[in-house]
């Protein structure tokens, strides 16, 4: 049976296509679409990158002899005349969680092949992500222009505060921005029936994995950078 089917297989490709063919010729380990397995492995590598940033932040914060600036005060925002600690950060956290919720529902509607609802929820997710990046831009400009925070120093305390902050939130913001573009592309394809013709909506789930990861990283940044 297997010999019969191998006789009808096309000839083994050469060159770069041969490389991909050879690498993908092994037995499949994970019974999931390859896009999903690859996204998980990419996210695993991203976990290590973000962890390296957070661990180096821990290291500089532990080793500095100058007091660390109090994030609760640095990131407070004056609302109606009173300073509310971490006001903007709390809103950003809620927005990202909400976007994760809409994304999870988009994946669900994708598997029900409800194109309109999937695309709408994905665009809503992208829009929430965009507002998150906007607020982060506001937060950065406030910190740079008004508080005078620089990667090499700041008026509030330990000099390492600035470099850790810009590095960690900047890299996360880059992920959110890329995610907004990614989601917009996939949502457009959902809308124009690309996945309907392809016969599967697994790409929506893969995009969802990426987006939830961005939310997941924020959970750790929120806890370790803003609340600690």
């Amino acid at each position: 049976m297997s010999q019969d089917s191998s006789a009808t297989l096309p000839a083994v490709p050469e060159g770069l296509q041969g490389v991909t063919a050879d690498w993908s010729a092994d037995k499949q380990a994970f019974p999931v679409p390859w896009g999903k397995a690859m996204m998980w492995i990419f996210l695993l590598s991203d976990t290590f990158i973000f962890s390296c940033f957070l661990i180096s932040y821990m290291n500089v914060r532990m080793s500095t002899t100058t007091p660390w600036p109090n994030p609760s005060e640095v990131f407070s925002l004056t609302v109606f005349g009173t300073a509310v600690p971490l006001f903007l950060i709390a809103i950003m956290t809620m927005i990202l969680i909400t976007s994760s919720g809409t994304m999870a529902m988009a994946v669900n509607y994708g598997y029900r092949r409800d194109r309109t609802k999937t695309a709408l929820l994905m665009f809503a997710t992208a829009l929430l992500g965009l507002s998150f990046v906007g607020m982060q831009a506001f937060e950065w400009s406030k910190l740079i222009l008004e508080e005078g925070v620089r990667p090499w120093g700041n008026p509030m305390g330990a000099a390492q505060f600035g470099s850790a902050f810009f590095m960690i939130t900047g890299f996360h913001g880059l992920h959110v921005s890329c995610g907004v573009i990614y989601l917009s592309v996939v949502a457009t394809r959902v809308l124009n029936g690309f996945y309907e013709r392809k016969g599967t909506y697994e790409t929506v789930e893969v995009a969802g994995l990426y987006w939830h990861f961005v939310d997941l990283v924020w959970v750790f940044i929120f806890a370790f950078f803003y609340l600690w």
Partner: protein
Amino acid sequence: MQHPIKIYLWIWLLLFVFSTFSYLVDFFRLQGYLRWTLIIIFMLLKAGFIVAIFMHMAWERLALKLAILVPPLALLVLVGLMAIEGDYTFVTRLQSFVHEVQKPSAHGGGHAAEEPAAEHP
């Protein structure tokens, strides 16, 4: 994989509640071990729900679960090493900074605030 929308709304609500709790930890200015414990508990709960439900990890096969969830445990070793390293750097800095402060006062040209105290016991 077909789950009712309800489960996502529930998790959404839970994440809201946990986020509010961890925000309140800061708002009420809890300090010390209580603060750190609460922050980490809420963080792990949120991370767990996101990975398990939103990212569908709860319904994957064990092979994939292990391949993705076990390797990050190696990071705990890095955390431990860097904590020891950070502590060592801190102590070294303290020692050398104290040394720097003491040096000039030994030659009589040190801090003005320390000199009179030494001369009037």
